[in-house]
């Protein structure tokens, strides 16, 4: 378990993390979402003690903190962060990297071959990493952390440069790790994917972590609360406003209009469907606000 206690990080006069207080539990997949430069990596660096916070501390398993060098070594035995693909050793093979990580964290060597197979890396893993494409390097970095097999795994932009197939493969592996009781913290811009697999998702706002459920009640619950309409005419919007004044409308920069329903009553849903069809609106879907929508809403990308 990670207990983040009043963490503040300031660079000069700029406060990147502002008095953050939160707990993450084992067996949880945590998603961190924010525009670039708003503190995701900083938070991970604080958790790894790569960066010392201006105030506050991080507790692991109730009592272990970065109070000494020896504690740092103890913590790093069960906390790891995915390496950056640009930091790989170009003259060493992928397999050598995997062996290195398995050896440093004393994990089961069988994991190496299992991970290679799971990630379809067999055809290139014995070649030098200098010959790899971005996607291949990214998969290797992910594999390195998987073979380290620590209880807490942090990944910054793990899906970068990956094709949809590999995104799915990695997601499945992450779910498996979560099922094994690992805590996985992911910072990502692949919002659909994150929404699909993360247990809790946090946005960053002025240095604070904000749970998506606090922004929109029941965000993580599968209830029909919204109708998402693409390219809705202003005249239809006006008509809707007149006919259904309790329905709140929001139009995002993506030309997506969200119709927030006051309830999920069958009659209301049926009436609305009829209304939209009558007004020649065909491209709409019932559901809930997606993380993409939320991201646009929260970071003020609203028309």
């Amino acid at each position, binding site marked *: 378990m990670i207990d983040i206690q009043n963490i503040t990080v300031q660079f000069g006069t700029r406060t990147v993390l502002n008095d953050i207080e939160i707990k993450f539990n084992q067996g949880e997949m945590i998603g961190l979402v924010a525009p670039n430069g708003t503190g995701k990596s900083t938070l991970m660096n604080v958790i790894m003690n790569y960066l010392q916070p201006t105030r506050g501390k991080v507790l692991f398993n109730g009592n272990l903190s970065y109070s000494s060098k*020896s504690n740092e*070594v103890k913590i790093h035995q069960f906390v790891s962060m995915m*390496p950056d693909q640009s930091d790989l*050793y170009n*003259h060493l093979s992928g397999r050598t990297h995997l062996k290195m990580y398995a050896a*440093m964290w004393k994990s089961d060597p069988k994991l190496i071959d299992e991970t290679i197979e799971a990630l379809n890396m067999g055809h290139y893993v014995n070649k030098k990493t200098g010959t790899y494409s971005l996607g291949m390097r990214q998969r290797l970095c992910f594999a390195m952390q998987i073979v380290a097999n620590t209880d807490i795994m942090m990944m910054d932009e793990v899906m970068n440069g990956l094709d949809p197939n590999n995104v799915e493969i990695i997601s499945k592996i992450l779910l498996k790790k979560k099922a094994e009781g690992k805590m996985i913290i992911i910072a990502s811009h692949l919002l659909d994917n994150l929404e699909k697999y993360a247990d809790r998702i946090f946005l960053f706002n002025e240095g604070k972590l904000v749970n998506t459920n606090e922004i929109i009640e029941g965000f993580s619950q599968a209830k029909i609360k919204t109708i998402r309409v693409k390219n809705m005419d202003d005249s239809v919007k006006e008509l809707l406003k007149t006919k259904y004044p309790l329905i709140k409308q929001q139009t995002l920069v993506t030309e997506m209009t969200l119709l927030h329903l006051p309830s999920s009553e069958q009659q209301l849903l049926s009436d609305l469907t009829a209304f939209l069809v009558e007004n020649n609106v065909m491209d709409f879907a019932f559901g809930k606000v997606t993380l993409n929508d939320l991201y646009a809403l929260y970071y003020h990308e609203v028309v």
Partner: protein
Amino acid sequence: MRRYFVFELKQFFTSKKNIAVFALLTFAALFYAFKLAPAYDPIEKVDYDEIEARYLTRAEFLDSMFGKSLYGYHESVGHAVSMFGFLNPYDERRLQALDEGDLRKYADETSAWYYYTNVYTYRNELLAYNPRYYMEDRRFAEEEAYYAYFEQFQRYDTYKRVWYDLTIEILEQRTALQTLERLLKGPLPYILLIATLLLTIDIVTKDRRHPSVLKGFPIADWKRLLVKVFVGLIGSVFLWIPIIVGLMIVGFQFGSGNLDLPVPVYGYELIANEQGKFVHMSMGIFLFRCFLLLATWMVVIVSAVLLCSIIFRQEMFNLLVGGLLIFGDRFYASRGVGYFWNVEYFPISYVQVGNIVSKYQNFYFTSEGLHDMLGLKLLLASAAIILVLTLLISLSKRFRLIK
């Protein structure tokens, strides 16, 4: 820690820069073995023609003066008659020994010849040593020749009593072990220390190129640094492989020599009683003491690189500090300076390990105090201080090995 050690070792030996250092050293060793060693032309060699020419000239002179009164001649003629009359029989017996192939007898006569020739020649305006001593850049040619003749005397004096068969190669110091002895008294210590510096110069700073891969390793910074010291030292030991290969090639050409071969050691303390200025030690002891000193030097270089790496974090500083350690004595090294300064207390006075163990440096600096054991203590103390400082810095909570 063992796993990190293996990882560091693998990086060390797969680094392109380090491979280049080993390749260059191998090339240099092979070039030396095939080209330079066979072309070695010592000033003091077994030269039948030279001995014969000198012998015949002097014999002719002695014959011409035989029975004559020296009255009316310049006083130097009297000196010449006396000296040639004393020395020429030695040359005669040396030639006989060579004719008979009796090198032990040759050694016996030659040791005496060097001793007495030196006594006659040193600071004698009428006589000179071998002209090759008087080269342009040798202001102290007379001193050097004086030293070399006594050294030869000691060497040949020992050859009279040795158990092994003598060869011309042994007498001319061409065997593999004697080649190593010569190299240790010459450029080899510099070459090996520079190579050590080049091998280890980025042993810490290279990690900056892979921060996210390495930073999270569950191993303390001080342990990483200690591992790097060991890896650097192991790498330095491997520098001997090309040297050994080169020496084996020399051995195939001129014989390997043996560990009982004599190495003359300047006996500074013996000057007062004029009983001869040299003693000798066996080749085995000489090489052991040289290796000990050189190995300690390598520890100093690697430790210094580590300390500079964590303080300055710039390879250029490592190069600068390493260079100062290796070549620092050039700032004060001059003949006789030991008479004014206590050069024996400067660790950097002990770089030329072969000359330290054979005590040539005592002769050069005019210093009684220079001794390889003192050098060893000073260098070990320096290495210990540098390492303790490095570890103390690495234990600081604010310290980050990889930023």
